[in-house]
């Protein structure tokens, strides 16, 4: 087994990444030593499959961030400004099979939390409490300015990017709040650094792209019957649009993508079905999420079983 895996690794394609990784570690070393910076990382080995072939891969996500300014935590409208440097992606043994981009970005994020914690007085009985001062939760708004560099693993296609992201999320869904969507909008300028693909297509334009996402979670079970409390409906809308891509992309209808999904999920809570099924969902989706190129209508059924 080991020899098969080793054979699958395209060592040549890995070589250019080694200096980059070393550089990252060297640069981050002193930063990590300082307490005021936050260092988060995740490395996850796995297998990557594409075109009926597979290759060993390492997913990584490294982020160094610092809160530059923040307002007190105990009050309403908590807000902050932070800076970060991050890199994420997947390194595959066979770079040709890797269709996930390698991303690196740096930026500033500011956010305001439209939340005021209620002040409560605990009662004697478990679950008993009095609200001394009412609070509210009207969601969280964030705005980011980002500059980055993205590449595929073979380094054949590389872009410089710059843009902004706006997000609004609401973590509650009781009453009318269920109708309020969580929204994310991202707008990037893409400056083509090098692209074998675009060169082959006889074009090398810079482009702009926008991503607009919205999602809802409706507690329909609670609305229907007390016994159906674990039933939820989920709606997921995503829109991608690129402007300025080569004509070949536009002709292939690849400059715009829409994805729509509706799902019903049911959690069995403290009493798994037949003692083994913890949760179940069924999802109907239509469209595509780039880099997938074909629009599809898909029905997915999922089960969570034997959860501890």
């Amino acid at each position, binding site marked *: 087994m080991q020899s098969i895996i080793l054979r699958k690794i395209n060592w040549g394609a890995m070589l250019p990444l080694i200096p980059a990784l070393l550089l990252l570690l060297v640069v981050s070393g002193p930063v990590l030593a300082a307490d005021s910076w936050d260092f988060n990382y995740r490395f996850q080995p796995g297998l990557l499959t594409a075109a009926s072939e597979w290759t060993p891969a390492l997913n990584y996500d490294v982020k160094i961030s610092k809160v530059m300014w923040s307002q007190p935590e*105990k009050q309403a409208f908590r807000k902050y400004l932070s800076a970060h440097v991050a890199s994420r992606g997947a390194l595959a043994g066979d770079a040709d099979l890797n269709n996930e981009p390698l991303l690196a970005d740096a930026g500033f994020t500011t956010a305001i939390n439209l939340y005021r914690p209620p002040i409560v007085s605990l009662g004697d009985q478990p679950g008993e409490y009095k609200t001394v001062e009412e609070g509210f939760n009207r969601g969280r708004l964030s705005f980011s300015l980002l500059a980055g560099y993205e590449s595929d693993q073979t380094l054949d296609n590389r872009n410089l990017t710059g843009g902004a992201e706006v997000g609004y999320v609401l973590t509650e869904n009781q009453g009318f709040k269920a109708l309020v969507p969580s929204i994310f909008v991202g707008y990037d300028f893409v400056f083509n650094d090098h692209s074998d693909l675009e060169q082959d297509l006889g074009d090398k334009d810079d482009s702009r792209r926008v991503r607009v996402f919205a999602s809802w979670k409706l507690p329909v079970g609670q609305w229907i019957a007390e016994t159906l409390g674990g039933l939820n409906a989920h709606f997921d809308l995503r829109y991608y649009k690129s402007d300025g891509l080569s004509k070949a992309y536009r002709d292939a209808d690849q400059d715009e993508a829409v994805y729509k999904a509706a799902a019903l999920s049911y959690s069995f809570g403290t009493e798994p079905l037949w003692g083994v099924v913890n*949760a179940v969902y069924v999802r109907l989706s239509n469209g595509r999420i780039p880099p997938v190129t074909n629009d599809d209508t898909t029905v997915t059924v999922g089960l969570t079983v034997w959860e501890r």
Partner: protein
Amino acid sequence: MRINCHAHVFNAKSVFTSETLEILLRRITEMEIPALIKTELTDQLGKILSKAGDYVDEETFFRNVVKKVSSSKEFKDVLKTLASNDTLKLELQGGAALQDYAVEGLVRLLEKVGDAIGQEDKDAAKADIGDALAFLRIALQPSIRHVTDILMEQLTLQDAVIPLVMDITHDGSDEKLLEKQLADTSAQVLAYPGRIFPFVAVNTKRPEHFSIMEAALAGRGFVGVKLYPSLGYSVNSPEMFKVYAYCEERGVPILMHCSEGGFYYSDETRTNSDPALWAAILEKHPNLKICFGHFGGATYLTAAEIPASCWTRTILDLMTKFNGVYADIAYHSEPMDGGTGEQNYFKNLSVLLQTPAYRDRLLFGTDYFLSRQRLTEKIYWKYFTKHLSENEFRQISEDNPQRYLGLPGETQKASGPIANYIRFVYQQRGSLLSESPAWLKNAIKELYGPTASLPKPSLGAKWSWNNKVHAYFYVFLAEGQLSDQQKARGFEAVGMLKLRDLAYWNKGFEANEIWNLKLKAMAENLDSFFCANGGGYEKKQDTAKAIAALQKIFNNASTYIHEAGEACDAIYHFA
């Protein structure tokens, strides 16, 4: 299973009314403790309980009593008689030092004060101040759960208890108070399933007494009815006959206070508990199961012969005529004084236990925690197991209670109220807090089929309301993350839900960009909530680390809420 057929788990707060205050204070004035301390105890208790609904803080209570007593002229006179190096004298020099004492220290100090005064107090026949304070400490426990826990800790896993609800009311206008007492007592069935068999109180001064009783017996885990007519109502009223008819038809056992002591509304109402009143009632309802609490009073059993005319004799006569008449030996502390009284008591009891007409009708009971005025629950059990033969004790603590309650066994099926009890436990199985005994597990299989079982209960310290991080975490979730149905299942059951069951959970059903922002929002909100409510960070934790850790916690669907609570406990603390 050994059963204590006569106990109480209410606390002072749960039965508090202006009526209760008067009755409780009267009870304290009857204690054999020095007058000075008695005055201060009743004074402080009156002050504390008059703030109805507020938390009754035993530490403040005892601190105030010690402060008052130690600063009184009478006590200062007593102090003068003590040697200059007396430890009590040294301890009480400078009232500010009292602030350093925790409850245990204060109670110990008060006992010493009581002993010192007792030597001078001609009225104090016996300075049992320690027992009186221990009794008050239980009464001042913050909840029924606390009182129950103190009781159950003194018993083995094979022991069970019948807690009797008290309804001390003038006109029933305090219905919320009774409702809370019933709800909290019902919750003890789930805390100790199969080991707590509560009786609901009927007091005809409360207009809704019948519907309250019906509801409690039908679906709240209550299995019997408690009567306390000396609180000011008659056992011969039409309302009561309606209750008897209901109980007789369904096999619901009744327990009535039947001694001349205890709580009473006025001297005249003491005789409302006279067992002689029951001859006529039982003629009309011969199959009624009625237990006369305290057996008419222990005094009559400490005589060489049980007198021909006394409440105990009346009860024995009723036993010979009616098969459903029982009596319990709760709060029989008189024999514990020793001497001939003790010898007579156990001789009389043994004779009764050898007489076929009475053998099957005597029940064991302690009157916890009212009996704590004299001795602990554990010592009460020990005393009777020592003085009765093994067979005799089994008869009164196992065989007879099983028949009286209608528990399923080799010779009988579950009675109606016990069948309702089994259904209640099974329906509430998600909220059980401890392991059920074998009889209950078997009964559930019999009722619901061989595959029916109870889930593994009890999270213990892993998810405890006494842990403020857990409690505040629960409140945070209750304020926007839990549905009304989830909240209705109670704190303990919520601990067994998973993060997937919360409102924010939508991972996999929305873009990662949105999900990541939601994790940040959840982490920030919880951090704000903890900090705003007095929480602080544990050592080596700060806001940034806390937010990062909380995001990780909130990112896992399969994490139990109690596990998330434990994880929060590693980050935050409350003073």
